């Protein structure tokens, strides 16, 4: 259970708090289900006072501060339309008003529409205290083993990317049983991500050959069968979805 709450005013204070071993300290973004965890005692370090909630643009990227809320991304005029729609598709209004982008990045599952989209868009993630720039794919693969202090400071969405996606679900706003996102860059680069299963979405393709995407997606779907849909189903319908995305 939560035994301490801290709201540092500076990033250095935050990192110092997070570096403590006793009690174990975890960063806190917007909404929290941490209070549900009764198994061990830990402290939370609320990042809301660090001024990391801005959304800015430069020539290449939309830079979204770690504590910017998902609804803030929807409402920001600089956000690309595909991003706004994916944010709306991800969760209902109240959760969008609570959830921060960094919290989302750390908690997204394989069934997350926004995560599928962001993975295809090759989201970049800036991390403190190292100032490392990681890809979203790297974060997804490493997030379970992160050692504190480790805080996302901002994420960067490439403004030049043209992204489309399709989510197949039981209802219009249900979590998808399969989702495919296809990103295209002016350079001809294509990235395809696949989700609807697993702990995180999968990168299926990153290259320049549209003809190779379908096969890559099908390959990614090997072993995807779970309690929500069979591998056979996912593999069978994926080519049609990919073709639609490529054609569009």
């Amino acid at each position, binding site marked *: 259970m939560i035994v301490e709450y801290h709201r540092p005013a500076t990033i250095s204070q935050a990192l110092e708090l997070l570096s403590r071993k006793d009690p174990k300290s975890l960063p806190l973004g917007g*909404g929290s*289900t941490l209070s549900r965890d009764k198994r061990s005692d830990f402290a939370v370090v609320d990042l809301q006072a660090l001024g990391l909630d801005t959304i800015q643009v430069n020539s290449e990227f939309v830079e979204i501060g770690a504590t910017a809320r998902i609804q803030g991304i929807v409402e920001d005029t600089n956000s690309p339309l595909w991003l706004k729609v994916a944010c709306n598709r991800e969760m209902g*209004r109240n959760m969008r008003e609570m959830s921060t982008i960094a919290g989302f990045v750390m908690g997204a599952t394989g069934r997350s529409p926004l995560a599928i989209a962001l993975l295809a868009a090759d989201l970049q993630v800036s991390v403190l205290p190292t100032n490392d720039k990681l890809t979203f794919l790297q974060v997804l693969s490493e997030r379970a083993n992160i050692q504190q202090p480790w805080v996302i400071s901002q994420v960067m969405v490439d403004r030049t990317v043209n992204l489309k996606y399709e989510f197949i679900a039981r209802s219009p*706003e249900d979590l998808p*049983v399969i989702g495919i996102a296809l990103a295209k860059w002016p350079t001809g680069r294509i990235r395809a991500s696949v989700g609807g299963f697993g702990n995180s979405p999968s990168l299926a393709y990153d290259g320049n050959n549209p003809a190779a995407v379908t096969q890559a997606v099908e390959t990614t779907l090997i072993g995807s069968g779970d309690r929500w849909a069979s591998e056979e189903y996912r593999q069978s319908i994926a080519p049609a979805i990919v073709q639609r995305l490529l054609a569009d």
Partner: protein
Amino acid sequence: MRIDLKVNGDQKSWECTPGDTLLALLRREGLFGAKFGGCDKAECGACAVLFDGRPVNSCGMLAAQADGHQIETIEGLGEHPDQGWKKTDGLHPLQQAFVETGAIQCGYCTPAMILAAKSLLDKTLQPSEDQVRDAISGVLCRCTGYEKPVQAILRAAAQMRGETVTPITEMPQSISPDWQVDHQRGDENGTGISPVSPTVKTRIMPRIWTVPQSPVRSRVGKAEIKVDAIKLVQGKPAFTSDLEKRGLLIGKILHSPIAHGRIKSIDTSRAKALPGVAAVLTWKDLPRVVYSTAGQSDPIPGPLDAFSLDNKVRFVGDRIAFVAAETEEIAQKALNLIDVEFETLPCIIDSRESMKAGAVQIHDEEEFVNFADSNPKRNLAAEIRIDIGDVGKGFMEADKVYETEYVVPKVQQAHIEPHVVMTYWDEDDRLVIRTSTQVPFHVRRILAPVLGLPVKRIRVIKPRVGGGFGGKQEILIEDVAAHLTIATKRPVIVEYDRDEEFTASRSRHPMRVRMKTGVKRDGTITANEMYALSDTGAYGCHALTVAGNTGHKAMGLYVGDGEYRKQPNIRFYADVVYTNTPPAGAFRGYGVPQGYWPLDRHIEMIARDLGIDPIEFRLKNAIRAGEIHPFSTAWSEGREPRPEIVHTVGLEECVRQGKAAIGWDQKFGNPAWHTVDNRPHLRRGIGIATVMQGTAIPYLDMGGASIKMNDDGSFNLLVGATDIGTGSDTVLAQMAAEVLGVPIDDILVYSSDTDFTPFDVGAYASSTTYISGTATVRAAEIVAERIRLRAARMISEQGGGSVEADEILLEERRAIAPDGRSVTLSDVGHDSLHKTDQEQIMGVASYVSPSSPPPFAAQFAEVTVDTQTGAVTVDKLVMAVDSGVIVNPITASGQIEGGMAQALGYAVCEEMLYDELGMARERDLVDYHIFRADEMPKLETIFVQTYEPSHPFGVKAVAEIPMDGVAPAVGNAILDACGANLTANPATPERIWRALHEG
């Protein structure tokens, strides 16, 4: 730690722990408008408050996070305009609009929805309907289908920007017999706002088609405001957990991690030693009393197979121990400190395995009490064998016989207020059980022996209930709190979380249903047979009666035609078996939705194979007015059956009206309509299902009502009927007001309290308006008679000649003589209590019905199917329903809309699945998806008013029938769209895809 918040404009400093949620803090400080939905991922939104103007779920935020911020709760919005000598600004326009439009049903999510809407209207007073739906997309509602809340918000926005809105009472309701749908309705531009008029149109009224003999009445049939709306819209502490009790302990249950096993040892010493733990109870501590948790009349029509605590567990989630502690955290820690050693037994998850030779016996306790044909040695909780006519002969005479097996899923009621109960000893050493229940009198009767108390020492109070849908027709956790109060002598609250709702509550019985139907080439059904294998889970609650209704209400609809109509050949067999899964129970529709998926899908398939119009085929074989309900001669919930004539059948008119509304003739069979421009993989389809329900259980369901007159001419109406958000208190008040000639706000309704209100079986079987309504009318007639006698004397004493009591008319709060002389009811009430021949004018009455007049409906669905992926989008649902006379068009249409939304989930996305060890796949409202406001299809409700002669005002039931036909209508529409013939629901993308590819 201390935090400073600005709450509703007041700066406050509050103490909290670092782990306290904002919800916990607000409720602890008396702000009960934020509700607990039990969710683990903050997914339901009932706890929403405004955080610096933004809607957030307060259960998902720490109180400490709010330090230094502004919080708005529903308590800060508006209040009752008249508080004695102190006047207030009254309700906020949003609150007023919610009240006026019938946007409030159970009211549990209402404060959250209003706050979310306020956040939107604070930004714009010109919202589109899409914006409104997005604004409330974070608040799940299981009652309304979101139609009326959306309209309420649009209406409030119009008022706030200074526009005139049409008073609800002036809105047109009726349609003429030759009415055709108007496709040019000005308000159907998706915004809810007329493009031409500055006056917003509030789309809340259903269309009503009325038979000529329906009399016009002053209160019955009017869109009266719900009697509980004002308090619910203010977020008043009206629900079970809103009561504050000094010394309240938190009760928790240790649930089984395994599906089947014996408790070899259980050690509670570490838990008991934890500071703050008041009691730990195991099976060793409690008397071993076998009972049924089903909230039904005596004798329970099912096996007695449950104990409060047992030395055996039968599903993942079954009870092992109870804990009471000073705080939730301590209680949770104590649960973790209970050491249990199991002898694991083989488990049965698939109902097809239950009765196989050598299957493990789930109920081997010696106390098991059989009912009828239950047999625990065969894992058989109930068996039904009904033969009507000569089914074998019917099949012999058929030109063609069709057989198919269908599967219907286990689904959850998902009321937003979880199960919750608070118990305490009162000053007379009587045990008070304040509980969110549909069946307070059954709670008292059934728990008395379990607790070792006589009935007279138990008082059950039902406050407002945040949705039930059958899930609270169960004595689910009342015993837990009661045992802990007995053990500790202290008040105890037990409140389920959402995980427990999914793993340790009740659900709809899943079934495998085999249909066999014989037909002539002209479409005459010669014989119809259904076999249902029903899975009751680990306990047999409602096992017999749910399955019985599957046959009774579904298979009773189609009797055949010609000679077969006179002597139908119908067979319904069912085996209800135990498995090691969470028990099933009552769920709105009570077995009937399980019947209509196979029956109606089968009918559709036969009609198409025979080349007969599917609607003509249905109507050709459907029961008609004046005919005997075929099952009334054969079955009555385990009791002696007695023949019942079906007096009113509005089915043909429902079909006619529904077809017009959905544009059936323009779409069905029209190849052009089925395609979508530039989207060759999309196909449109249209489908219908015709259905029949029941109204109460004949010769069994009993309701009582008591009415007393006050000295200002108002009346207290006390009913045992339990309004669980349906609006039953309101319609009962309307009926009383009709008889007594007063406005509805002169009727003060109180329900339900076993100490004060008359007996009523409770809210189930679509019985309240019909049964409790008749009781209310009878009680009101007794009161009216006493009023007339006294008024006649009082008027005669005015001079001008004597008046007889039977000449007096009660109207507009007056008792009026034929010559126009009158006295006010206030004068009559005052006279009766203070002046002459004093008496308390009151009436008590009850009612048991000899019949169960069935409502009928035609339900239509329009869908778009992605033929490459199997994804289906339901575009529109229309329901034309014959529920007899509609007492309140707004509350009744709210029932239909909410029921359609719930049934839509049953059609496309809701199901509960288990792995081979009995572990649930669905444990929250994320994985178990219920429809949100921003994804609903268009809904349209039409009432076809017949006049049921067995009720004083001609009513039949409305609450359950919307559950029945949506799923098969959607299934039929999918078939129409792309040829995918589903045998199992919900219609998930993969099921549709498989049906397309596997033929």
